[in-house]
């Protein structure tokens, strides 16, 4: 059965890079791996040595291991879902051409997360992979990722369908009037009659997909609660980390989802000593004053690195007090531009890939 690793975290913690490095580590451990990223930046594609990423799998050129990378295309995934499950071509076209659908498939809040789950399910169903690593959309709070699909699924809840677009054979707009006159009256006044008609038409058209959508919703839900799935929170040693980590752990607990651990990125390495010296005398050809400045800089480097590490310690202590597996990744300096840099990070994720070997 395909194993799933879901990397959550707020924006700017290095989630996309971590997901890619983790996927690389799994591939090097002999697994057939897919990494589904969200980051629209070209950088990840560059660092993996592949062309621009899209919805379809691209093989990463590795000497050792099998790794496919892809980037979520929301609209394409929605379209495929509609094409696959619409009961007829006429129904399919009615949805694809609806103006509200075009909004919903690209701009609807939560749509991103919903389609990430759908794409995940597709990858699992394909049977092509041992492991799928999922990078999640950046959000202020990691937990938003888990709540958003439910919100969208709620839109297709039978309740809304009943309210807005009841009899399947009616046109959406007329059905809407039967739903509730107060609601439609107010809504029409607020967002215009034409728009309401389009929205109702959309929900009416989507009704044909309802069984398929709820079936897939249930499948995703089961998958996320199964033994096959591990959730990882990617974070940094910042003061806000603890609150977020606790919130994340609680949300997973409440939903019966398995938390594997925290990857703590960019941990400042602690120098073994702050004693530096002795310094050689100023070499020939150097300005004595300039040499002095450089030696001062070198002499101060360990102490300044040590101060930085010190300032992160409380955050690390608080995270480890939560009693969850903690995987620190040292700040390796600089951006990740190529496979070598990604490999350097992957080298620190061995314990994530093979937890039983270390714990």
């Amino acid at each position, binding site marked *: 059965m395909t194993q799933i690793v879901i990397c959550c975290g707020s924006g700017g913690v290095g989630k996309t890079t971590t997901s890619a490095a983790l996927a690389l580590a799994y591939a090097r451990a002999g697994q057939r791996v897919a990494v589904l990223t969200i980051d629209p930046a070209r950088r990840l594609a560059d660092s993996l040595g592949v062309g621009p990423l899209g919805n379809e799998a691209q093989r990463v050129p590795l000497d050792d291991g099998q790794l496919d990378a892809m980037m979520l295309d929301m609209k394409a995934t929605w379209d495929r879902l509609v094409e696959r499950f619409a009961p007829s071509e006429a129904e399919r076209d009615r949805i694809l051409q609806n103006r509200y659908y075009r909004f919903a498939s690209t701009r609807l809040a939560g749509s991103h997360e919903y389609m990430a789950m759908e794409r995940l399910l597709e990858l699992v169903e394909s049977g092509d992979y041992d492991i799928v690593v999922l990078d999640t959309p950046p959000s202020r709070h990691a937990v938003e990722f888990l709540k958003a699909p439910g919100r969208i699924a709620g839109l297709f809840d039978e309740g809304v369908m009943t309210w807005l677009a009841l009899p399947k054979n009616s046109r959406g707009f007329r059905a809407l009037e039967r739903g509730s006159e107060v609601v439609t009256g107010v809504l029409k*006044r607020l967002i215009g009659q034409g728009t309401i008609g389009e929205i109702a038409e959309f929900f009416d058209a989507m009704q044909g997909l309802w069984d398929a959508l709820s079936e897939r919703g249930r499948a995703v839900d089961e998958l996320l609660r199964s033994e096959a799935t591990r959730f990882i929170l990617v974070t*940094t040693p910042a003061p806000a980390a603890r609150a977020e980590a606790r919130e994340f752990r609680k949300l997973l607990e409440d939903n019966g989802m398995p938390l594997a651990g925290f990857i703590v990125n960019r941990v400042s390495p602690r120098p073994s000593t702050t004693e530096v010296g002795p310094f050689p005398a100023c070499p020939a050809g150097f300005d004595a004053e300039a040499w002095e400045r450089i030696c001062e800089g*070198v002499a101060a480097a360990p102490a300044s690195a040590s101060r930085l590490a010190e300032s992160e310690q409380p955050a690390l202590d608080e995270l480890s007090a939560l009693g969850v597996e903690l995987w620190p990744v040292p700040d390796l300096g600089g951006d990740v531009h190529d496979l070598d840099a990604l490999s350097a990070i992957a080298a620190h994720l061995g314990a994530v890939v093979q937890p039983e070997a270390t714990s």
Partner: protein
Amino acid sequence: MRVERLAGRMGLLDRRVLLVTGKGGVGKTTVATSLAVEAASRGKRVLLAETQGATRVSELFGRRSAGYEVQPLGPDLYTLSITGEAAIEDYVVAQVKVRAIYKMVFRNRVMAPFMDGVPGLHDLVQLGKVMDLEREKSFGRPVWDLIVVDAPATGHGLTMLDGPSAMMDLTVAGPFHEGAKQIQQLFSDPERTGIVLVSLPEDMPVNETLELHERLGSYRDQVQACVLNEIREPPFADLSAWEAARPHLADLGEAVELTDRAVARARAQDQARGRLAALGCPLLELPLLDSRRLRAPQLEKLGRRLA
């Protein structure tokens, strides 16, 4: 250049609204808070608005957040945390007039997810709340001299600015369309609304800042400043001498490697400054601070540096 003309006439803190945005994790809240603290210390009545229900500002001041209610943080400095849900309620109630109708019609089990799913509505209404606050008057003069908005991160920040036009496209006419138009007018007026971009002195954040600036489109002229955060002292002034000096110091081991990294970082900082200069707006710098100690006095210091 319209911007330069305006910038010459108006200081960074002289507009009615400042939107602070940038990539996730670059320090938007720190910058927004510092700007608000500085403006308040200059005698302006300032409201610092967090979006998407974030409550980090009150934490920085060691208080419990009062959420959507305006809460004092100090003399002339107030904060609130805007959430999409609360702002939708405000916005719709303003249109339907009766709160009870809103609750009955829109917040029931069936309609609530539908309302939350109207495209761009969450974004639009949060800006709408800022507009309401901007218009608030007491004895004929505005209640707030300046509203600093700690806006969502890059991608979402853009979607948010896109909210009014998304709603106008969707509705074509009607009260929501009109409301969106008014919101659009406030946020696209360079005399009233300024944008501050926050970045870090590293490749990726700088790329994203340049890209954000590009994608701001018609809002681009309103960018008043770019703040480069977490600037570190270079290990020594003349970085170019390092390669020649390094072989003589090889015996010092770890300290040399740490210096390598400090030099690389200092060079990346210089590069970031150079690339961000292309934005054509003032580049302001903030030093890396120990975030454990980031409290009101530090924020004041940062604010003075910015303004």
